[in-house]
């Protein structure tokens, strides 16, 4: 007999609906799965068999074929186990065919019949076409957030079979888990001194400008970067859903009962491989760190230590907000709209910034500089030098503005950007930017001089205008931009790793 159950698999960050077809007929006993299953999927055979037997069902001594349609799409992972088991039971007439109408199932089976959640379950259930959806009990609330279908939460295959046979009612949904304690976002007020750097963070958050911090070890670059997500606006519902899907596909830990509205913060170590950073690992074309940082912050500490080819791979996502990953079997587009924050030392010994302190040879410094390609450096609107704060200022000194205060200013600035039809100024096209940034006489004169003496290049000019616009937005100033806005922008855009001053 023949039957079908709806399920789904994951490719990249999107679910792909899959129809599990089962056919049981007389013939030589055997079980085969066709339709491009990967290894984990093919192993479903053994898991399903053990789970059926442990759940008090019969293992049919017949010829069984399972087809995963559409057969051209590669099926990945163990999420189809549950659907395969249910389809087989109906095809073997251990269950009524009618009970599968409008039913979908996503979940992995244990040998004892337990039903478990799988990585990527959020995008997968989003793709399942069904009125009722059977999933593992521990992911029931999470799935409920993204799926319109009626959720049937089961702990074991036996529970599902009993409910479908009409012997027992569906088990009730588990009680809502205690909400996770709100993640403690470090407060900006903890940072003493560093006024310019704090201002740069605020501007980065308000305008979506990528930020490069150059400074010696111990200057507080990491401390500053960790405070950036707190300044960004909370994610809206669509963004939160997108982020949850990406994180689920990447197999990250998710809050159990809600879509997280905190902007993600990802800080991959510099030994991270290209695939782990950009995505495309495993047959699922798993999203990488840049995708996981979508709508949040990607922090690359020790930028100079990342292999150059890995850094250059960041250029496409920085430009387009997405990455196209192509492999022989498939091609996916992964979202990658993140705010890039990078930190690095000015030279291997870390002291080059301070005149007369560096211990590195010129060759070492030149080699360190060459690691970063010009095009990548060019993507950073904000390039600031961070210096170690005075000890006096660490101990005494007044705390600066708190995260809440600054976040309110950021939100106000973003509201002004929204009147231009974008979420933040970094998204303005060059033409729109030109229109939005009229300059007053003083600002024109200042830019003119800077261009003439060569401290500003033509390409840098657009970036400075963009930055100045955000600075004006934060100050609540109307057009035109004044010389103060432009002066501040120039001060926050240093030439990174200036060549030896004596040259």
């Amino acid at each position, binding site marked *: 007999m023949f039957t079908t159950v709806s399920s789904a698999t994951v490719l990249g960050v999107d679910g792909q609906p899959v129809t599990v077809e089962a056919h049981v007929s007389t013939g030589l006993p055997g079980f085969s799965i066709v339709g491009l299953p990967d290894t984990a999927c093919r192993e479903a055979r053994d898991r399903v068999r053990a789970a059926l037997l442990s759940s008090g069902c019969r293992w049919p001594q017949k010829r069984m074929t399972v087809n995963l349609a559409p057969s051209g799409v590669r099926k990945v992972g163990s999420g189809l186990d549950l659907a395969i088991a249910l389809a087989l039971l109906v095809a073997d007439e251990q269950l009524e065919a009618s009970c599968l109408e409008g039913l979908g199932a996503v979940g992995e089976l244990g040998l004892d019949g337990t039903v478990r959640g799988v990585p990527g379950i959020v995008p997968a259930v989003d793709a399942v076409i069904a009125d009722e959806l059977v999933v593992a009990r521990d992911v029931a609330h999470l799935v409920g957030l993204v799926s319109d279908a009626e959720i049937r939460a089961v702990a074991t295959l036996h529970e599902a079979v009993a409910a479908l046979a009409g012997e027992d009612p569906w088990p009730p949904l588990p009680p809502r888990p205690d909400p996770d304690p709100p993640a403690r976002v470090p407060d900006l007020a903890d940072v003493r*001194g*560093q006024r310019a750097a704090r201002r740069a963070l605020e501007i980065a958050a308000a305008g979506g400008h990528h930020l490069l911090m*150059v400074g010696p070890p111990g200057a507080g670059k990491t401390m500053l970067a960790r405070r950036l997500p707190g300044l960004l606006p909370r994610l809206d519902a669509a963004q939160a859903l997108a982020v949850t899907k990406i994180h689920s596909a990447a197999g990250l830990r998710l809050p159990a009962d809600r879509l997280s509205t905190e902007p993600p913060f990802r800080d991959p170590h510099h030994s991270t491989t290209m695939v782990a950073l950009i995505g495309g690992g495993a047959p699922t074309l798993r999203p990488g760190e840049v995708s996981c940082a979508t709508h949040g912050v990607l922090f690359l500490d020790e930028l100079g230590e990342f292999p150059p080819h890995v850094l250059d791979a960041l250029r496409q996502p920085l430009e387009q907000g997405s990455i196209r990953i192509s492999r022989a079997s498939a091609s996916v587009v992964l979202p990658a709209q993140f705010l890039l924050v990078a930190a690095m030392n000015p030279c291997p010994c870390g002291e080059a910034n301070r005149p007369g302190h560096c211990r590195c040879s*010129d060759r070492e410094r030149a080699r360190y500089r060459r690691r970063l390609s010009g095009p990548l450096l060019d993507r950073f609107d904000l390039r600031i030098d961070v210096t170690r704060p005075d000890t006096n200022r660490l101990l005494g000194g007044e705390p600066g503005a708190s995260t809440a205060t600054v976040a309110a200013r950021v939100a106000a600035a973003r509201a002004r950007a929204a009147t231009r039809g974008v979420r933040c100024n970094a998204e303005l096209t060059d033409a729109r930017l030109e229109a939005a940034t009229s300059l007053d006489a003083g600002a024109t004169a*200042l830019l003119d001089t800077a261009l003439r*003496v060569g401290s500003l290049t033509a390409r840098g000019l657009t970036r400075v205008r963009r930055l100045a616009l955000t600075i004006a937005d934060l100050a609540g100033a109307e057009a035109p931009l004044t010389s103060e806005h432009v*002066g501040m922008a120039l001060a926050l855009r240093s030439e990174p790793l200036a060549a030896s001053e004596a040259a």
Partner: protein
Amino acid sequence: MKGADVGFVTAIASLPKVGPARLGRLLDLGEPGEVWERIRNGTLGDEPGVVESLGARSAPLVASWRDHARAMDPERLGRLHHDLGIRLLCAADAEYPEVFRTDVEPPRLLWVAGDIGAVRSPAVAIVGTRRCTRYGHDVARRFGRELASAGVTVVSGLALGIDAAAHAGVLDADEMGAPPVGVVGTGLDVVYPRRNVGLWHSVAQCGVLLSEAPPGATAEPWRFPARNRLIAALADIVVVVESTERGGSLYTVDEAIARDVEVRAVPGHVTAPSSAGTNRLLADGAAPALDTGDLLEALGVTVEATGGSGRPDRPVYRDPEEAEVLDILTTGSVTFDELAERSGLGLERLGLVTARLQAEGVVQRSGGWYERRG
């Protein structure tokens, strides 16, 4: 030196581990051509006492020279001098600088590119650290320019930093100025450091480049102290512009003291590591070099008062905020945060003020630090 000998002498000097001392002993053994033949045949060690005279652990070295010598062509080396416009001088030559004839440790051989007539008195050596601050750079450049304009020969080592700034200053001076003298530690055809290639050729063209190393000799650590000795020997005054506590320019100072050459130091910030060495010299009794006038007076040179040491005119009026920032910057390099705190200006206002001063060229930023220029 005779044409044929140039090739042989250069070949001997190009053998591995031949410094001034070994070279001197080898040349004392006989005619250069003859000595070269003995090295090539491996018969140098046959004569008793020769190997011992070359210093400890010389026996394996002498043996290795034979193989090196067979790979070299003295005739080609001789032609190379002609092609590169390099000349080789020894004490027997009339053009050999007089100042070396009376020196305690004169160079046995001197390779010369340019006009040897540029080596003349009065001369001031300007030396200092390779990693200088903007302050040191500007002082060295100004001294170079003003001394050259006053007809004083400026001697330096063509290293990065202070050395390069001093000679850049000399080249800034008008055509009537004294030509520059550069003393380098590598072969005259090996530009080191590469970054100075433009300056290197300009000095050879306008003045003269001297080296104790044969053409083709690459940068080796032991050659630079020897080079510093020549700088000290050529100078009437050695001016150290900036030096760290244990900088290489202090070698030059030691050599100058050994020759009774006056040493002067440019005062710096007591907190600046780049001035630690020079401030120590001042504390130890060196006279300060405050401006060109002091140096000229010490040399006994008088200059017509045509404003040779005149400073660039400062605008009389500045807006008070700019003046305040400039005032703070006179105390050395300062970060943006510190500037904001000490000036009491808002960050935007300060951004504007520093941007203006930078555009004017009065202030420069290196790393996160702001410095005053000039």
